[in-house]
């Protein structure tokens, strides 16, 4: 299990989507979940850097596991996700600060994501409010942004959650760069997908 988490953590780190020690990934196996250890370097995850804990209830392992453990647990309890990636990709964060939602302009983004909601919370890390709002958004979308914080993406496999994270970032980059030109896009699905 740790190898899977380690592999994708390093990929995300190398792409600049997880910076140094920040960000976290988890995998659900039945009633148990495996999550990155708090403060572990994203490109050096070893067996001792993945913490096993319960999906159902809080346990003493919270002293070691990611500070977002409760958000991951809440997502597993309220969605069909079996893997979660929480990352801090730069264009995603920029777009979360500029827009109330992001409608992808790129073909893959609009085909796969349709719309990327932006969740706004007062307390950005490990709060009940974050838990509630992220869970609510992930019931309808596979990937979301949290304003000023980063992305949450879910999937049946870690590879899927990783893929969604990459798509979120690609769509945000495209949207941001097109808007930066001030020229307007010849292909914009905003009207179509705003209602998604």
């Amino acid at each position, binding site marked *: 299990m740790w190898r899977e988490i380690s592999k994708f953590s390093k990929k995300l780190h190398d792409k600049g989507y997880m910076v140094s*020690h920040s960000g976290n990934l988890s995998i659900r196996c039945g009633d148990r979940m495996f999550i990155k*250890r*708090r*403060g*572990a*370097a994203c490109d050096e995850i070893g067996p001792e850097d993945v913490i096993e804990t319960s999906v159902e209830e*809080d*346990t*003493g*392992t*919270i*002293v*070691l*596991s*990611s*500070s977002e*453990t*409760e958000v991951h647990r809440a997502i597993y309890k309220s969605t069909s996700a079996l893997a979660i990636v929480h990352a801090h990709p730069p264009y995603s964060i920029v777009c979360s600060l500029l827009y109330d939602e992001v409608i992808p302009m790129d073909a893959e983004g609009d085909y796969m994501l349709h719309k990327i909601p932006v969740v706004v919370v007062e*307390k950005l*890390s*490990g*709060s009940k409010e974050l838990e509630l709002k992220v869970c609510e958004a992930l019931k309808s979308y596979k990937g979301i942004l949290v304003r000023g914080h980063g992305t949450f993406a879910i999937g049946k496999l870690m590879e899927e959650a990783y893929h969604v994270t990459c798509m979120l970032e690609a769509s945000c980059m495209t949207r941001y760069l097109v808007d930066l030109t001030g020229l307007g896009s010849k292909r914009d699905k905003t009207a179509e997908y705003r209602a998604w």
Partner: protein
Amino acid sequence: MGCVADVNLTTGSFVWKDLQEDVAKKFVGGRGYGAKVLFDELEKGVDALGERNVLVFATGPLTGSSAPTSGRFSVVTKSPLTNTVFDSNSGGFFGPSLKACGLDALVLRGRSPSPVYLNVTDGNLEILGAEDLWGKDTHETRSMLLSRHGRGSRVACIGPAGENLVKLAAIMNDDDRAAARGGVGAVMGSKNLKAVVASGRAKTKIHDKQSFNFVVRECFKLLEQNPVTDKALPRFGTAVLANLMNELNILPTKNFLSPSFARVDEVSGESIRAKILVRQRACFNCSIACGRVTKTKNKQGEGPEYETVYALGSDCLVGNLEDVAEANYLCNELGIDTISMGGTIATAMELHERGFLPERIEWGDGKKVKELVELTAYRKGIGNDLAEGSKRLAEKYGCPESAVQVKGLELPGYDPRGTKGMGLAYATSNRGACHLRSYMVGVEVLGFPKRVDRFSCLNKAGLCIVQQNLNAAMDTLVLCRFTSYALDEDHYARLLSKATGVEYKPEDFLVLGERIWNLERLFNMREGFGRKDDTLPRRFLEEPFKEGSAKGQVVELERMLDEYYRFRGWDQDGRPTPRKLAQLGIG
């Protein structure tokens, strides 16, 4: 500058005096102020339970303020258990009440000819007879004093253990909060001082309120976003560590003879929450609320914390949670340190098993543990030997290696074979084996600030030193150690600067701690301590576990110690060099 009440209990007289400005700047308050008084005033070889020992109750510049966990106070004295300089601090609400009397410190000297207690109010102090209180437990004492002086008063007192000069005796306040370690309660008992009642109402003076409040808000924000201070400790108490430490072969079991405890699930933080928890309890201005009010079939009380789960539980092989909790309640009522009590009982169990001690004290006998706590408090039967602590007990019965102690102080709940930096921390601690001088478990296991290899001896000295310095400085404020999961020297220095108007940079704050550490070292050297005492029990140096994740590990202490002395600017025998002392402005 603040104010000190200097009380001579022999003559029944006292004076109020100003806290000297240079002392306040260099040593701030709490542990720092106490260490300075002891170093300046105690002659070499003073009997810790004699008239010439001094007992200091000290608050800090943040005590009673809006700073997080600002409810603590320090007790500083020469310890009868270790014969070292010793500070022990406690939470609850007594500290702010003492501070609100206008006092930064209470210096107690001499010995009253008969039992007395002090009643401290705004700018006033009375020495009153305590004959009717003598013999009462800590809860009864508090209750009687509150009915006499008002429910708003706060009480710090000793129980029968302190009166009977038990070297494991604690000073208890607000019923179940303890300045527990080192036998500070016995020093209070030796002075015939049963209690201190504080009923102040003055507000803590803050130099720059606006800036101070901003820093306080930032501190609370960080504490609320930290998973340990916001979730783990509030939900499960400190015993949240039990399962984890057991898995890593760090939870001491059977007097540190076994790598793990098979019944850990029965006494873990999760079990406490599920089985006996009534409610959480927080000290003054604390958002963490790690305290546990609990209830067994027979009784209600407070605890057990992680250290107690280890000392009265796994270390004695007691897996019945109700027995552990009730032994804890008894310690609170009789005024005894649970860590040293458990460590001493575990030593007695080992002595009995190995045939050195005829008294039948069997591993895992929870009822016997409770009985021994009572016997110790009243120095009855074998309790008279236990009252001397594990070192003297094991020496008396001819098997000194059975005592798991450093400088006479029983080890806390972390086996250093599984967390080697803790081995260095225990060996070099100025007050004997202690987890609060340097908590290397934080960096070696919990990953604060980042995780390092727990089995490596490399580069541990530097980390240990910086923690010792930081914690010594924190103890001048006097804040709870748990804040350091979320805060660092930058926050503490800002709080101190805004509160006092004296500018401390983060590096100044660490130097403050280093100054205190070196002064304490000088005190201990004057008492004859040196490199020979900076050591560990043989089992950690030569006897590895044969199974478990810490299999084959021992602490390579000498190597770490050489590095430690060098990094401290001390010579090879552990003596601070003149250059270092000049740098720190002491000596």
